[in-house]
């Protein structure tokens, strides 16, 4: 008998951490217990992207979109939905009644998205090679091996106008061509999966949801440049992605998509995984190659570029996960098709990890040229808890802030650069009025200072210097000279650092200084933090008129700084107070105020 229902359970890391694997197992067990295991197929897929509402369970053909499902809901889904045909209303994302034959009302989160990189995420079982094959998997490899010459492949990628998705946006075809024409009988293909920006998880989700697409793309590149060995460099802290990659590689070898004489073409290619320890600098290509070779991950001067002299001194193409994921689609649908998506300077789509103070945090893929306003408000649903929008940080610790006035800038490589930020790998952190911009800049700088490898002085010493200046300002000891000093140190870092980590480290400080000068001034001149974040610049006080003496705050205060009699206004002892803010959160009468 044919299956009547298909249940897709999100198996991305986010949903898995809320027990989606248990949901998956329970669904199978319940279906068995109730005797309908031959009527329903349960599939563990990659990330659906709607992480805010996870774990996600989708039931077909009704297209019922269940959110925040718990393992114990499995029985009800099988009993009610599969056996009796009644949707489990309380778990539905859109609860409005609809006729079964009416189109499912579109979920706004997905409306403006276009999924090319994430085409298979949330659709197929990433641990089943057959499902990948059914979705045109390994078709591009077949086409390349039998119908295209290496130059044709480069021409197709050139027509597509694919640019590196790791951040810098270098034209992919040029990299491939450099390696192709470079002399040498041994060449390498490398996948950079060392994703490390705070809040970014695009690459992880792609690998978890569609690992075969990366293997296929790397093999295509190997054929194009004449390489027979590939490496995937991935951080050890992505265990699920590593596991799915290992399963995919095993299946791929069994089918003969990796190994000797692929599909009878005579072309040999193999891929190995190299685990990184999670140093941010290893995302920098020359440091990454050092790490693969077994050395300490430190950047090397460029040129020579890896495309000419890379791994063990051999020509090496190194691309980011998202870049690779685009390649099979470009080969299948043609470079022209791809080039018609997006803007003039950036073609295709971009995946963003939308996080921070946003209603619908999650993974979104949009055509290049989509505005930030569309991402934040239409897809992201706006700012959480009714607060006011302040800024978005793109490009992680190498990027900058984008403010309200630039919300309508189309997002592409050039557009973001013009407003002082950068595309970066795709982390997008939304800030609201409660975030202090100096504090945020300090957070990112702290990250890069921590992650600096220490090889070159401008990054090692400059970063620390900048950090000291920012700390001085948030401590209320800043002077007006400090701003000039920040700009001076930043310039030295940009000009003198060996790799992009140091060159871009001052960006968050410079861009916040450019868009929020008044906030820096408030800290320096008025010794005041407008958002009430910088502890040394604020005081918690109890409004004597509003306080009814309920003692709730006094009981919660971890250091016993609040005193007063029951039913009489209380007071905070400023000498003892550690400014943790618990009293403000506890008070039901808004009597605790930040001064």
């Amino acid at each position, binding site marked *: *008998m*044919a*299956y*009547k229902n*298909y249940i897709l359970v999100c198996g991305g890391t986010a949903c898995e951490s809320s027990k989606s694997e248990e949901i998956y197992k329970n669904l199978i067990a319940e279906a068995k217990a109730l005797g309908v295991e031959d009527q329903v*197929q349960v599939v563990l897929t990659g990330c659906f992207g709607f992480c805010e509402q996870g774990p996600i369970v989708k039931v*077909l*053909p*009704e*297209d019922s979109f269940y959110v925040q499902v718990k393992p114990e809901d499995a029985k009800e889904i099988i009993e009610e939905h599969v056996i*009796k*045909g*009644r*949707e489990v209303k309380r778990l539905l994302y859109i609860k409005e009644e609809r006729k*079964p*034959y009416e189109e499912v009302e579109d979920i706004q989160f997905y409306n403006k998205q276009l999924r090319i990189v994430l085409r298979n995420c949330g659709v*197929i079982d990433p641990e089943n090679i*057959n*499902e990948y*094959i*059914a*979705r045109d998997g*390994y*078709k591009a490899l*077949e086409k390349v091996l*039998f119908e295209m010459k290496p130059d044709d492949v480069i021409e197709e990628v050139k027509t597509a106008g694919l640019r590196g998705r790791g951040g810098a946006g270098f034209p992919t075809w040029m990299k491939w061509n450099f390696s192709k024409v470079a002399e040498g009988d041994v060449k390498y293909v490398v996948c950079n999966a060392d994703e490390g920006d705070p809040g970014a998880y695009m690459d992880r989700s792609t690998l978890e949801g569609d690992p075969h697409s990366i293997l296929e793309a790397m093999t295509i590149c190997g054929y194009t440049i004449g390489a027979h060995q590939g490496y995937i460099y991935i951080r050890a802290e992505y265990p699920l992605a590593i596991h799915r990659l290992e399963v995919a590689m095993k299946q791929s070898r*069994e*089918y*003969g*998509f990796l*190994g*000797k*004489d*692929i*599909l*009878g*073409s005579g072309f040999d290619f193999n891929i190995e995984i190299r685990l990184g320890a999670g140093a941010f600098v290893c995302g920098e290509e020359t440091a990454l190659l050092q790490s693969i070779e077994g050395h300490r991950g430190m950047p090397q001067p460029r040129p020579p570029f890896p495309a000419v002299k890379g791994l063990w001194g051999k020509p090496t193409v190194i691309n980011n996960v998202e870049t690779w994921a685009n390649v099979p689609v470009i080969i299948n649908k043609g470079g022209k098709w791809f080039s018609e998506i997006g803007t003039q300077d950036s073609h295709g789509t971009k995946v963003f990890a939308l996080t921070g103070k946003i209603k619908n945090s999650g993974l979104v893929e949009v055509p290049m040229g989509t505005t930030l306003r569309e991402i934040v408000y239409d897809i992201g649903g706006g700012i959480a808890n009714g607060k006011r929008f302040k800024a978005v940080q793109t490009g992680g610790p190498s990027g900058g802030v984008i403010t309200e006035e630039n919300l309508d800038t189309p997002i592409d490589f050039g557009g973001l650069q013009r407003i002082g930020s950068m595309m970066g790998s795709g982390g997008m952190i939304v800030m609201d009025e409660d975030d202090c911009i100096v504090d945020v800049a300090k957070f990112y700088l702290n990250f890069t200072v921590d992650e600096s490898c220490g090889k070159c002085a401008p990054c090692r010493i400059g970063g620390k210097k900048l950090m000291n200046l920012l700390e001085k300002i948030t401590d209320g000891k800043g002077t007006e000279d400090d701003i000039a000093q920040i700009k001076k140190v930043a310039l030295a870092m940009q000009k003198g650092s060996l790799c992009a980590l140091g060159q871009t480290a001052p960006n968050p400080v410079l861009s916040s200084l450019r868009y929020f000068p008044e906030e820096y001034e408030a800290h320096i001149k008025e010794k005041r933090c407008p958002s009430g974040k910088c502890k040394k610049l604020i005081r918690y006080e109890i409004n004597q008129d509003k306080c009814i003496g309920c003692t709730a705050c006094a009981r919660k205060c971890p250091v016993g700084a609040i005193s007063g009699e029951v039913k009489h206004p209380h007071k905070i002892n400023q000498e003892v107070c550690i400014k943790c803010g618990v009293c403000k959160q506890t008070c039901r009468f808004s009597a605790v105020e930040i001064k």
Partner: protein
Amino acid sequence: MPKLTRQELDKIRAREEEKLKKRDIHGKTTHVVVGMGTQGISAGAKNVLNALSDEIEKAGLENVILTQTGLIVSDKAPVVEVFSPEKGLVVYGNVSVKDAQRIVKEHLLENKILEDKRIQVEE
């Protein structure tokens, strides 16, 4: 010798596409819905559903989605609704397994409404 030839890959792809297509609900225009309320089930809706599923599979109808729903209010259970672009919404009552086979043959394949089984359902 390669592990897998192009011909073998073609075969695998054709087989797997067929399997995955069943999961895909995009581009399917005709919906067949079986009312699975308590009265529906007690009147044999489950058998009707199975018969419809088997017949649709046998006929190789790729643009049809078969779903269940809760109660369709009617005293003529089991109730089957067919929604197609050609004929719009048609509701059948007192559907038996035999009728289910007729629905697939006549309505879905030949585009003819089974007037003798048609009922009016109040909204």
